[in-house]
């Protein structure tokens, strides 16, 4: 509120800043109790409320799957499209009206199996669209089949003898596709989700955020090591631009490169962070280190969280308008 303006006492209530609930629809979410989607919905609507954009200029677009029900629970314009095809509809919306803030909500089966082609092309084209990939490593809506991110050997209803193939690493795929903003967050960390979602919105160009999502019903505890209070210090590493890549209790482990391989270097209690410790640079034109960080994970190394890459590139559909008529 502007402090120099004195509102007359008789005036109507001054406009208040929008709250998260202004962006929630009246529909009651129908996810399983304890589903990670609740946390994402909470952080996303909190992010929406903080953008300073009127509700009608936000569009939430999803494919098919448990996570893709999310648009029904927001109070923005929304489109619950086809399995895997949300990026295509989102691109049409954004190109038709560049003033809109367009968010794609997708899952691992949606974005990486049936819709992998569209995901790839959305990311390489770099339109100003924000894509959240809610990765629970399982098909939930169809009740428990293996997805493209299910780990090798995992027993599911469609893989009774274990998953026979190699999973996709979503962040690595996004980096390889040339996405200009790539991040990973956990569904348990509301503060980091809001921070990263807001950064995604502020980024001019495509933003890809993998949300590690827990499915309580069909794949509970998939990310337990990374998110549980007891173990997360040793298996999660929050990346900060310009800072050395440290983790562990009291940040006493540093990542170093040894002949191109990333290793964890334990530090003594009072030991200074060595010069050779890797530092995080999301603006690096070279995605090599970011891809190595994306592939890290338990048991040998921590899972990297935060923004892997954030660079500027020409934005699809926002180039200078053509000025002549054919």
């Amino acid at each position: 509120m502007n402090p120099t303006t004195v509102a007359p006492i008789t005036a109507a209530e001054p406009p208040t800043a929008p709250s998260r609930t202004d962006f929630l629809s009246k529909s009651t979410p129908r996810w399983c109790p304890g589903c990670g989607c609740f946390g994402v919905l909470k952080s996303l609507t909190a992010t929406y409320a903080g953008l300073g954009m009127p509700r009608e200029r936000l569009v939430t677009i999803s494919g098919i799957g448990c996570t893709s029900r999310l648009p029904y629970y927001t109070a923005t314009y929304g489109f619950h499209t086809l399995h895997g095809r949300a990026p295509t509809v989102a691109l049409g919306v954004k190109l038709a009206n560049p003033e809109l803030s367009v968010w794609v909500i997708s899952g691992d089966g949606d974005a990486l199996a049936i819709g992998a082609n569209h995901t790839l092309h959305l990311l390489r084209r770099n339109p100003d669209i924000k894509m959240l990939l809610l990765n629970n490593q399982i098909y939930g809506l169809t009740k428990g089949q293996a997805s493209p991110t299910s780990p090798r050997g995992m027993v599911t209803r469609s893989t009774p003898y274990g998953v026979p193939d190699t999973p996709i690493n979503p962040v690595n795929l996004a980096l390889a596709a040339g996405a200009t903003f790539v991040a990973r967050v956990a569904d348990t960390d509301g503060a980091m989700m809001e921070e990263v979602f807001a950064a995604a919105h502020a980024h001019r160009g495509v933003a890809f955020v993998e949300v590690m999502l827990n499915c309580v019903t069909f794949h509970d505890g998939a990310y337990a090591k990374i998110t549980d209070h007891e173990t997360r210090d040793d298996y999660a590493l929050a990346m900060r631009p310009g800072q050395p890549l440290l983790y562990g209790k009291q940040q006493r482990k540093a990542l170093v490169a040894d002949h191109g391989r990333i290793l964890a270097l334990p530090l003594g209690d009072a030991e200074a962070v060595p010069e050779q410790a890797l530092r995080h640079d999301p603006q690096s034109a070279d995605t090599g280190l970011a891809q190595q960080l994306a592939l890290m994970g338990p048991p040998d190394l921590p899972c990297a969280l935060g923004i892997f890459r954030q660079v500027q590139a020409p934005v699809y559909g926002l180039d200078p308008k053509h000025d002549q008529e054919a």
Partner: protein
Amino acid sequence: MNPADTAVDLPDPDLIQVQTMDEITVKFAGDSGDGIQLAGQKFALLASAAGETVRTLPDYPAEIRSPAGSLGGVSGFQVRTGSAGIYTAGDRIDLLVAMNPAALRSNLGAVKANGIIILDESAFTAANLAKADFSGNPLEDGSLRDYRVFPVPIGKLTRGALKSLGLSNKQTSRSRNFFALGLICWLFPRPPAAVEAWIAQRFAATPELAKANHLAFHAGWSYGETAEYFVNPVRVAVDPQRRTAGVYRFVTGNAALARGLVQSARRAGLSLFLGGYPITPATEVMQEIGRYRDPDVRMFQAEDEIAAIGSAIGAAFAGALGATSTSGPGLSLMGEFLNLAVIAELPLVVIDVQRAGPSTGIPTKSEQADLLQALHGRHGESPLPVLATAMPADCFDTVVEASRIALRYMTPVVVLSDLSLAGSAEVWREPTLDELPEFTVHRAAASADFQPYRRDPETLARPWAVPGDPGMEHVVGGLEKAIDSGAVCYQPENHAAMVQLRHDKVAGIAREYPASTVHGDADARLLLLGWGSSFGPIREATDQLRRHGHSVACLHLRHLNPLPRDLGELLKRHRAVLVIENNSGQLWQLLRAEYLLDLQRLNKVQGTAFRIAEIADAAASLLETLA
């Protein structure tokens, strides 16, 4: 050296002794690298500028460049020009220009008895004859005795005419098409100044090529005038009906489809968004849209047909006129998204330029076999309007009507065109925006009790509130909708009612059709019924039969769903109805099911359009059985 200094003065075509004909069909044929399409198009434009009625039909080889001189590499361009009543590019050829033995072999069967064949005898080498599967030389073995053959050493004479330019043989051979064009422009007297000016303009960036083509054109013209043994010039009678004043252009079916979309969006006050993916024979539609620099005319080349239609649906959700253009295989991929547009009730125009199927089929040949796919190729009860184009210029009018229906009724509409219209061209005066019919756009007015599926009582269309409109935020999607509110609803009675509403909405479109009119006597014994590109041969067959005293009429359907409401009564007025289609009887089957009438059928599934004679013969035989 300035070519104009060396060229002979060409005589005024009006001073030449000419014979007059009502119409003539000319085919240019040669290797795909011979510039056949360019020469053919120019000839057609000149005929059109002279006031003649012109129809053209290109035929391209399937491969980009087959080996030179091979049968697979023959490219052709057929031009039919005449005074009136011209609706096709012609059944048979009066004059064939064959630039090599393969071009002769490929087209000889279509040349009329005693027809004229002008061929480049320089290209009739042993090697080229072998490539075209000739065991001997048809110029020497008497096998062409039924035709009037004029061997002209086009290659050699072109080289001679271009000698002063110091070009290689390969370079001079590129101007052979202009020699041929010059010769034909002498034969059908055309003002050479127009061609000269066009050559200068077209090849302005490469002056040496402009010179070469100019010289070759003159050489061809002079050869026609000088060669004593040649036929007299032929003039085609000019259309006695003067054209309405305005800008005329030569338009192909695909160009007319694209222009129709652009002008529809402009007339409706919307932006146009076309999502596309390259596919023969529809690609020109997206390319045409892509040429516009107007920010309100956008083409997006997607990663596949699914993304093409998905982006168009997204754009429609955001307030644009959404469109996509494809062919049969692409329409198959689009089925799931078409259903989403049906249930989300968004305005979308889907153009299917049909080709021969199934599967990859014959991508460079024409067919009308996607009708049932367009009508029924989706799961669930999924009605949508289907329209078909009849002539190249009609592609414009049909797309305008499809766009009007899409916006007025908030529905996807499928437009069926086909390959034989895609590249075929006719002369056309584009209507101004004011001349186009009015468009209704159901943009929702802000209201406190906005409901995204509360329908217009007349059209049953839902209101169109788009992102950016305050206070009307809502979610659409593929799940069944509750009446009015549009909320997700699995309730049985609601589902039945929504299925009925979607059906009634589409069925109601037929209320607004103009009355169906047959061409010919309303009570003729035989009615020839067709849809799509078979319009031309059906119409000409009807005219031909009527001239011979037969009691025949014809009717052509643009609206394939919903069918015109007066169609059933109209069909009953005739002793017999012959349904004519380039498929195995798809419309025939639909009409028999709809009206319980014993209709007859004539089908051709050979990848080529009907010839007029095929229809006239079948109709005459059928009439005999009615006697």
